[in-house]
């Protein structure tokens, strides 16, 4: 498994997550000014050709038109109030969508500024190793697949592609927002470059891998703007249900007129339209598309680009998460966990020697030894410079050990640290005896999946083995709890690692994953995904290497790291610009939150109808059947004020819920049954009760309007 940890852009250590605290997926806040600035766009969306795509709101718009005509014909304050509020209902629905889109538009603007209209230096004839090249200048937009271009320091890369020659540092801040440069080189998994990014040093030859107009930046712009937005399967299903509820209520009201005429209580068009609009699920109908856009937006805010809304939804459905060990479950490197001295040596002495031997060792392992010695074993912090006569012995592949030779007062102290066999051999060569005890410690560490480093020293005459440093993969704090939460949500975690099964098992147990795949090859991964899918499960994974591409394509949710190859990015259905594999868990939560928000607002919307009936039905028929006044349990002032209040409430609730639809409802990982109970109490019961209060309050105000008394 290749996992390239890039230099600066937020390697996992640098983005400390705090999963121990109960967390919640949150979205950006809604700036009230956005409501105002989006208003013109909301009015523009009243265009019938736009409205017809949303059957619920289309009915509202038609109703608004009918009441307006009716108000013109038979003017009354009541008719105008209803007409005005119906138009407002439609505008508010559009407003929610416009606000949701507006947030993406700002982002698209920034991207567009970086979009390249550079001139590309296209190579006419290129073979590896060729030094004299003929080139021509073409606009970047005319570059075709497979074209080769050369880019030098200070120039903008004209299109997406793979580096085929050279190595360069590239500034990708235009896309990732991360200012520190990254290295891109030919071959391997760091060969992908993105159009619009800037080469800072050196010179590279790039083979173009995207068609004009379909570059990564083009796609990003389309995505954040919502231009490429298509309805997701689940959204379609919900729309069907809402449309059929709309039809039922339309029928219920249309057929009501003959019944009403029979009862000598013929209703005006205005009242009938008001009843229809009150009953059809306008709240969810108005907010549905905003919820979807906001879901994508929440991902963008986390620097994840989903190629389709379908992928976001699939993320909520995932049953199995394939997680790379390195970077996701453990920190990238092995770290010193403890010092195990042999008999007769104090742990302090061992720590001291280990620290000395590692002072010049700039590998993460070496640094971790120094840190462990000072922090856990209380060794004084030392620096290379303060040791007078120190000669550091660097690690080589031949010696397989490193260390330091200190000369103090004519006495030379040699400290060595390295692979068990190399250091014990060194000690034996220098007259020491490698006790059997060392071997048992070493075997114990290996058996537990760790890596042993033996420390020995020689003062003057004989060498002596001091003990062993236990290096191990350090599981990220809190990750175990995170997996427990996932289990509660019904998601199985599988750790993928290139380690041997023994090491893998030890880490798997420590991290609390459900399963692991050791010595994983791309083929193994693919087979695992297919096996899970054959059982009806949805699989999510992250990947970056070219050999991950088939698995990324096969997985239901494939998150490609931005540092990865273009093949990987092409194969996945999401790209994480931060290249942080832990984010997969957040992506799943965002997917779930999106669905929950839809369900909660649907429930709320339908439950609202009960109160509206209690407001409108007595208002319509209490003159014909005075007994029906008993249904006026809110004691609304008059029939006209009751109907107006219901319609005003219906419109205002849309605006009131825009922030919620953009933010998403609160989501805490828990079992399905617990989640359902919670949401039914809040949105079902709340939806039942709230409109009674709301309509009553509005009635208390509108009863003073002369025409509604």
């Amino acid at each position, binding site marked *: 498994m290749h996992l390239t940890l890039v230099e600066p852009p937020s390697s996992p250590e640098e983005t400390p997550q705090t999963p121990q605290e109960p967390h919640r997926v949150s979205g950006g806040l809604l700036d009230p000014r956005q409501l105002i600035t989006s208003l013109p766009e909301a009015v523009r969306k009243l265009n019938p050709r736009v409205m017809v795509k949303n059957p619920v709101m289309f009915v509202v718009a038609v109703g608004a038109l009918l009441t307006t005509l009716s108000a013109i014909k038979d003017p009354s304050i009541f008719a105008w109030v209803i007409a005005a509020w119906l138009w407002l209902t439609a505008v508010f629905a559009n407003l929610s969508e416009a606000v949701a889109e507006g947030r993406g538009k700002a982002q698209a603007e920034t991207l567009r500024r970086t979009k390249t209209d550079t001139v590309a230096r296209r190579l006419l004839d290129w073979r590896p190793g060729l030094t004299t090249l003929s080139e021509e200048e073409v606009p970047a937009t005319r570059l075709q697949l497979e074209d080769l271009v050369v880019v030098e320091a200070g120039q903008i890369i004209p299109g997406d592609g793979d580096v085929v020659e050279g190595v360069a540092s590239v500034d990708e801040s235009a896309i990732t927002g991360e200012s520190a440069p990254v290295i891109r080189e030919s071959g391997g998994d760091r060969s992908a470059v993105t159009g619009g990014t800037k080469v800072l040093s050196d010179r590279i030859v790039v083979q173009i891998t995207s068609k004009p107009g379909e570059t990564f930046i083009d796609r990003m712009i389309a995505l954040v703007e919502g231009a490429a937005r298509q309805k997701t399967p*689940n959204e379609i299903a919900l729309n069907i249900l809402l449309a059929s509820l709309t039809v039922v209520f339309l029928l219920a009201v249309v057929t009501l007129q003959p019944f009403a005429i029979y009862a000598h209580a013929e209703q005006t068009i205005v009242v009938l339209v008001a009843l229809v609009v009150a009953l059809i699920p306008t709240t969810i109908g108005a907010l549905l598309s905003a919820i979807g856009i906001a879901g994508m937006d929440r991902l963008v805010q986390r620097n994840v680009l989903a190629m389709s809304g379908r992928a976001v939804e699939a993320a909520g459905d995932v049953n199995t998460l394939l997680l790379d060990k390195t970077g996701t479950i453990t920190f990238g490197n092995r770290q010193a966990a403890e010092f195990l001295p042999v008999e007769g040596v104090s742990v302090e002495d061992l720590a001291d020697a280990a620290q000395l031997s590692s002072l010049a060792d700039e590998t993460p392992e070496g640094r971790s030894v120094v840190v462990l010695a000072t922090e856990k074993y209380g060794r004084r912090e030392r620096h290379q410079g303060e040791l007078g006569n120190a000669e550091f012995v660097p690690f080589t592949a031949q010696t397989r050990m490193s260390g330091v030779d200190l000369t103090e007062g004519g006495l030379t102290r040699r400290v060595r640290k390295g692979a068990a066999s190399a250091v014990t051999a060194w000690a034996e060569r220098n007259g020491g005896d490698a006790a059997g005890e060392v071997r048992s410690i070493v075997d114990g560490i290996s058996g537990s999946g760790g890596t042993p480093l033996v420390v020995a020293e020689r003062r003057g005459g004989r060498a002596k083995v001091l003990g062993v440093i236990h290096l191990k993969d350090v599981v990220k704090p809190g990750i175990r709890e995170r997996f427990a939460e996932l289990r509660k949500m019904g998601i199985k975690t599988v750790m993928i690692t290139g380690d041997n099964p023994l090491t893998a098992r030890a880490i798997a147990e420590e991290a609390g994953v459900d399963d692991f795949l050791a010595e994983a090859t791309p083929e193994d991964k693919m087979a695992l995904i297919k096996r899970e899918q054959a059982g009806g499960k949805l699989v999510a994974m992250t990947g970056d290497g070219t050999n991950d591409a088939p698995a990324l394509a096969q997985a239901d949710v494939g998150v490609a790291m931005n540092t990865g190859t273009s093949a990987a990015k092409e194969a996945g259905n999401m790209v994480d610009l931060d290249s942080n594999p832990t984010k997969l868990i957040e992506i799943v939560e965002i997917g779930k939150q999106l669905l929950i928000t839809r369900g909660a607002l649907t429930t709320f919307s339908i439950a609202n109808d009960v109160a509206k009936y209690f407001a409108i039905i007595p208002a319509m028929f209490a003159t014909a059947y005075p007994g029906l006044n008993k249904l006026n349990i809110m004691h609304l002032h008059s029939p006209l004020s009751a109907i107006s209040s219901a319609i005003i409430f219906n419109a205002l609730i849309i605006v009131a819920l825009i922030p919620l639809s953009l933010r998403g409802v609160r989501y805490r990982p828990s079992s399905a049954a617990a989640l359902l109970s919670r949401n039914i109490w809040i949105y079902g019961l709340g939806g039942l009760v709230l409109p009674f209060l709301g309509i009553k309050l509005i009635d208390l105000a509108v009863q003073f309007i002369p025409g509604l008394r």
Partner: protein
Amino acid sequence: MNDTLAGWLQVLALIGALALSYRPLGDYLARILTSAKHLRAERLIYRLGGVDGDADQRWIGYLRSVLAFSLVSVLFLYGFMRLQNHLLLSIGMQAVAPDLSFNTAVSFVTNTNWQSYSGESTMGHLVQMAGLAVQNFVSAAVGIAVVTALIRGFTRKKTDRVGNFWVDLTRIVLRVLLPLSFVLALVLVANGVIENFHAVHSISTIAGDSQSLTGGPVASQEAIKELGTNGGGFYNANSAHPFENPNAFTNWLEIYLLLVIGFALPRTFGRMVGDNRQGYAVVAVMGLIWAASVAVVTFNELHSVSSAAGHAAGGMMEGKEQRFGVWASALFAVSTTLTSCGAVDSFHDSYTPGGGGMTIFNMMLGEIAPGGTGSGLYGILVLAIVAVFIAGLMVGRTPEYLGKKLRGREIKFASLYILTTPAIVLVGSGIAMALPGERAAMANHGAHGFSEVLYAFTSAANNNGSAFAGLSANTVWYNTALGLAMLLGRFLPMVFVLALAGSLASQQPVPVTAGTLPTHRPQFVGLLTGVILIVVGLTYFPALALGPLAEGLQ
């Protein structure tokens, strides 16, 4: 024993008897519907009909068979009635008028058994036995066959086959309905229900008037009338007639019979999907609604009485038989309106507004508690799909029921299903109320008159078949309109249910995890009950407000 105690004992005995038959009958149905073996008699039938009993059909083929079978049945029955004066055992009855023949043929084929006629003065014995009674068996079996196909949609994976209609039909008739009806007919005969081939007897009453009494093969028809939730009586008075329902025991037995298959089918469902708890959840919803409805109607009939005579009688006795009393009549009324049976032992028209309104509301629920044979279960399963869809979203996953995902296609068919019946009821009633001539058919004025029309269309579209009485429905317009309502109300839902079955069967099931919405817990029972009440309540509230509510809230 006072009435209250007797009433309670009847209700409790009924619940006990239904509970006792839940497992054996449900398991038996599951066994015969999944067995690979054919009886010798069945093989003979398949050979005669040219059916390959081992070949499963696609949903569309299954549907085509249902429709073809029903079409042939309607044509046959229509011809039978039009020509009955030329046939044997016509006991002097004339040919039935075309519109009435159409209405009646449709009515019996759709398991509605709406009757715009008086059986004793319209139908000869041969039509009753070889025409109507036959439909009582097969129309009930068609309902069970269709729900079986739907259950197979849940249990099967990645296939386009949902079973063989002819095999399901034959097995249900031969192995369930015929033997049970035979035994029960004997029990009814033993308790005083008549079974003979007598023509019309004229007798002189004590008061000196003459009265015509028609005999006939009543008991044999009575058992399947209830068991198959048909409800079409041999006599106009239906189960209020002493020849059909002579005493308190036969009354209790008839209630039990009309509920027993409906309440046992959830067991069959649980069995077939391999999780009996799913069956318990569904039957719990049915039971809750039934019990609540019994309580409402009984309470209203006992206590919401406005007339002095009613108070003297200890309850609303108008339109009820003295030999049954308020409790047993209310129990019958609720059970018959919640099952699509439509047999009556009292006149719902005479119920208190609360009680009568409840019987309308019962039918509006879509006949799902427990509903007609088969149709009740598929009705509640479709509503369960809608409930799971909304609730499933709230747990953050693409909603799934019994391992099958509910996506656009499934929701489309479920939505169409729940849209169909209200559309027929509301449009039908709306047109009737808009036509002056049809309004005149009402016996009462004001809100009550409207209730009569609303009841008629609700009854027809939901394939219940009970009548509020009061409405003179034997007119060309009503016979045609109600006939169409019955046809559409029966077969459109079947189209959607079978399409749903096909769509579900083609899916690969999703494994159950902790993230899956559990559909066997009290939580789901509450949720499904709530969705049913709210969806139905919201649809019909305006209409109910102008009928029973206006009447009751005076």
